[in-house]
């Protein structure tokens, strides 16, 4: 289960709309409780893919991740996952997503159709790396 506030959901939807027709991406800080992740704040990341590829790809560099890991530790939080948008594509993980994902993390995918944010989903990669499983999420007021 992934838990996030209405404010954070709104921030992700706005990021997807602002980045359209390109993909947005960012890191989710929060805490884990058993299998549950609770998102406390977002760190929007500038998509590091070359500009001609950003309509269907995103990259969070190791340097961005290193800074985020240190910031999370300073705040007493953890990196619990990532969000990104699929412009004019379904809110489902692609094979490319699976090839580049890690177990444990929550992966939020937001479909943005013609600039409008639509369905938002969350996913977890199996330890075997064979597939993603849908992750239920709860939006708290």
């Amino acid at each position: 289960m992934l838990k996030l506030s209405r404010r954070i959901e709104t921030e992700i939807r706005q990021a997807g709309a602002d980045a359209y027709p390109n993909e947005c991406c960012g890191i989710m800080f929060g805490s884990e409780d058993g299998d549950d992740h609770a998102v406390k704040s977002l760190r929007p990341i500038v998509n590091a893919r070359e500009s001609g590829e950003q309509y269907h790809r995103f990259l969070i560099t190791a340097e961005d991740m290193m800074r985020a890991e240190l910031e999370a530790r300073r705040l007493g939080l953890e990196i619990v996952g990532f969000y990104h948008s699929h412009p004019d594509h379904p809110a489902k993980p692609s094979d490319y997503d699976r090839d580049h994902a890690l177990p444990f993390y929550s992966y939020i995918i937001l479909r943005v159709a013609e600039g409008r944010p639509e369905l938002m989903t969350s996913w977890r990669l199996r330890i075997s790396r064979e597939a993603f499983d849908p992750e239920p999420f709860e939006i708290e007021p």
Partner: protein
Amino acid sequence: MSVTILIPTALRSFVDRKSEVEAEGPTVGEALANLTAQYPDLKRQIYENDTALRGFVNVFVDGTNIKKLNGLDTPLAAGATVMIVPAIAGGC
């Protein structure tokens, strides 16, 4: 020579849920070998084979990516901080 290795959240389940682990070794490669000897389940997560790290696995020594230094042969000073950091990618 002892160094501190910081573990990202995604890999903590392979190191008894610890966020950092002490390891011994004069180079990054030897410190990681010592780490994975302590926690064998971690090895297949970060290594492509016996000698090469997986493509998405990056290692920083005191804030500098070892790709800009001498890779796994990068020497470690006593008390150095080593971070294992995944790069994250995806798309539709």
